């Protein structure tokens, strides 16, 4: 179990808002801090993976329960 520094709730949001908010939130975090993000847009799953790759941040964990996605992301850069 990792320690969560920041939680971002993107439930109910449609593309591209989850990624825009993710980008904005992580930008304000310290390097090394860990973000927990929730979302319900089926498109988010791939988007978050691509965004992390692109920005050089690490996607530590992805899970889905009852149509709600949960991502754990660590700011690396």
């Amino acid at each position, binding site marked *: 179990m990792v320690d969560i520094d920041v939680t971002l*709730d993107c*439930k*109910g*949001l*449609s*593309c*591209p*808002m989850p*990624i*825009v*908010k993710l*980008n*904005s939130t992580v*930008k304000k975090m310290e390097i090394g801090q860990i973000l927990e993000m929730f979302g*319900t*847009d*089926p*498109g988010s799953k*791939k988007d978050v993976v*691509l*965004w992390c790759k*692109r*920005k050089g941040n690490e996607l530590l964990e992805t899970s889905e329960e*009852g*149509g*709600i996605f949960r991502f754990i992301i660590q700011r690396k850069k």
Partner: protein
Amino acid sequence: MSEKGMFSEVYEVLFGDSWKMWIGAIILSFFSICLFIIISPWGASGGVLNWGDNVIKPLVNETATEITKNRYAMLNIMIVIGALSSALMAKQFAVRIPPLGELVKGLIGGVLIGVGAIIGSSCTLGGFYSGWPAMSVGAFIFTIGLVIGTFVAVLYLMWEADKYPGISAGATKTFLGAANWQPIAGVIMFIVGLGFLFLFPTGPADILEGSMVMMGFTFFGLLIGFVLQRSRFCIVRALREPFMTGETSAAKAVMVGILFGLFGFVTIKLFGVFFPLSFTGTGTTGYAQSMFVFGNVWISGILGGIIFGIGMTIAGGCVVGSLWRAGEGQVKLWFSIIGMVIAMPLTNSFKTQFLEWTSGKANITDAIFLPDIFSDLLDGNLLFSYLGAVLFVLVALAIWYVIIKWNEKSGKLSRM
């Protein structure tokens, strides 16, 4: 392999993960060519205008064309049903209510889409995805407008998320999601969709009344909605991502679709199709040739494109993108559609008056068929005129490709 194993394998292929967007694009272009063979290619804004007419016109004691007599209005309804059944089958349906600020953005985005679509006589299909293969000069102008509008709106969204994160935060609600009854409900929904085909009689006399055409559009609409949801086909994404993450897969998918469509559209426009009702001309002046060459050169195209581009990026979907996401249960896009339905008929009546007022002034709403330009240069040689137009489209695709690949590496255009 047991029967159960085979079934779940097929299910996994179709519904396990989203399809690659370029696979969706090829199938969609194929369906668009099928629609063109019936009578005219895939478009969206005209159908929503008809929905709007049916809402607004009765209020001022005017009559609108019935939805069951407008092929694009019917096509759009079927796209929603197709996407709904696909989302259900994949257990991806849920009523997703975003924060209030997002609903307002959906509505405003929809209004801008509606205004832009009417001013520019196009949407992302007629002015881009179908318009490029149709070799319409106005489509290239409208597309430039789309790119400018998208860039402006991306800057806005990022500024909003930084300065006013509260707009996209707050109480949300998601219900009916990921339930086990969904796949069965999806199959039922698909069958209900097929039932709509029986709205249209198909006796010998009815064929002449265009009833068969309505049936064709109804059928392909259902399939198009299904493929859109499965492949999450999104033209906004194709234009937006270079300005956000720099990612290029959606843009490449749209390119593949346009390229695929180009083969079919050029063949139909150059050689014609045996359908005596729809093809009355030859060369570059006939019915098929003028199809999807809209009057948007150049002021109306650029202005409409910019407004449309801003709207679709804020709403999170163009006309078609809003339709399939609405079917998936994304409530923001329901509001986007409401915005279009209100804005389109109103803008349309203003536009009619405006054009009467400016009649005679050139360069506002000209319709120009690209091969006609080359025909003037090449002494009317039909084949070479088409080849010139095709080369123009290919060069446009190549330029777009080079720019996004350069940006993918350099990140020069990416704001994230």
